[in-house]
């Protein structure tokens, strides 16, 4: 209910602003909606959203898997940490644009280049978060696992992984928002489809209703995924904490 109210407030503000500023710079909601419907009818909306989502999914999975593994290793093994730390600092502070442009130059305007570039942008934050998680592992529970001679796999699943879970969730949360932002830049610069590409086209043609239609449908998809996928997942992970309270 409160969410609906907040949404209505957003539409109202938009409408009033468009009346004040004028249609050419900020088209009113119905104008954008009609473009949105036209794009949906032609199927272009779904093709572009689908392409973007596929890139997000691939880059996100790649960065999370690799970042978690590297972060865990760096948190557990001090040699790995000393070897990896300078690279980590470099990657953390490297602008997304540099990575994307270089990837396109070296690997061509390809899907592989786009996804790699997005993943590289997200990777260091996952590494940093998981490294903290691995450092915070409770040595008392490690000892328990050793004393009871738990096999590695079982110890990892029941002792280590639940302790890392909040860190994985945090990395996923911040990583996903980062990927949402960067994927459009990568598409804008070098892909022939996707929301970023369409926004680029709209920018060049100064087609503001088209620009807003894609931006808003993209924001809608993000919201749906956050509420239906990310938040329930987080709740499930911390189930035991809630009951303990």
């Amino acid at each position, binding site marked *: 209910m409160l969410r609906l109210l907040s949404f209505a407030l957003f539409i109202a503000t938009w409408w009033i602003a468009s009346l004040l500023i004028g249609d050419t710079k900020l088209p009113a909601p119905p104008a954008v909606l009609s473009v949105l419907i036209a794009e949906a009818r032609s199927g272009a909306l779904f093709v572009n959203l689908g392409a973007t989502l596929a890139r997000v999914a691939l880059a996100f999975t790649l960065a999370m898997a690799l970042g978690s593994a590297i972060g865990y290793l760096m948190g557990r093994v001090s040699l790995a940490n000393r070897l990896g730390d300078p690279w980590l600092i470099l990657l953390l502070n490297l602008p997304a644009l540099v990575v994307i442009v270089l990837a396109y130059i070296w690997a061509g305007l390809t899907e592989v280049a786009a996804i790699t570039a997005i993943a590289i942008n997200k990777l260091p934050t996952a590494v940093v978060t998981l490294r903290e998680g691995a450092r915070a592992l409770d040595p*008392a*529970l490690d*000892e*328990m696992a*050793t*004393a*009871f*001679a*738990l096999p590695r796999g*079982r110890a990892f699943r*029941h*002792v280590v992984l*639940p302790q890392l*879970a909040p860190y994985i969730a945090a990395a996923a949360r911040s990583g996903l928002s980062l990927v949402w932002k960067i994927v459009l830049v990568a598409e804008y610069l070098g892909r022939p489809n996707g929301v970023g590409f369409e926004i680029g086209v709209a920018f060049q043609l100064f087609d503001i209703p088209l620009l807003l239609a894609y931006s808003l449908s993209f924001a809608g998809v993000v919201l749906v995924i956050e509420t239906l996928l990310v938040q329930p997942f987080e709740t499930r992970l911390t189930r*035991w*904490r809630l*009951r*303990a*309270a």
Partner: protein
Amino acid sequence: MQLEVNITGKSFASAAGKRHDVLDNVTFTLNAGEVGVLFGPSGCGKSTLLRILAGLDANYQGHIARSPGMRLGMVFQEPRLLPWRTVEENVRIAAPHVDDGTLSALFEVLELSVHRNHFPGELSLGLARRVALARAFAIEPDFLILDEPLASLDNALAGRLRDQIATLVASREMMTLLVTHDLDDAVRLGDRLFFLSPRPARILHVETIAAPRAVRGEPEIDEIKRQLSQLDLANM
């Protein structure tokens, strides 16, 4: 099954780089079916000794001979349960082969049956200790280590838990090593009592109690305690 302990020294370096001797000379043998009690002042190195015996610390001088394939069950001073797993899961993760009947019987003795599906965060310290105990017994250990299992419980609760431990220890032929600084617990549960000196710990005196635990009556326990309290441990 037998455990031969022959530690000649253990020290560690403090953060300031100074060397601290924790253990001096600790030599004893423990046989199957026996309950050994390590008795000594707080901070004398009992927990360090237990960690060495449990194989958690390999950095010491001396030698420990364990029978091959020995299964270790350990109850740490803090329960060390997995907070994200239920009571039953905590036990089953350590002891995946335990059958339902054994587990139910174990929970029955320890009065944990109603708590099977609770998370450790929902339990009191006394209950959490009993879960840790259930976990150690469920793996059917050959060597059981109990690190102050009755500490910081009120008298009535400690007494009940002591009886439960006695029941469980009697139900299985294994070596048990108990750490306590309560003489009453030591005399009621132990077969052989090892009196440790203050840091660096060495064994000052070994007291063997001949009467089996089951027939040890109150007068005998009082008599043993009286004799032990007359020992001049400070000048040994």
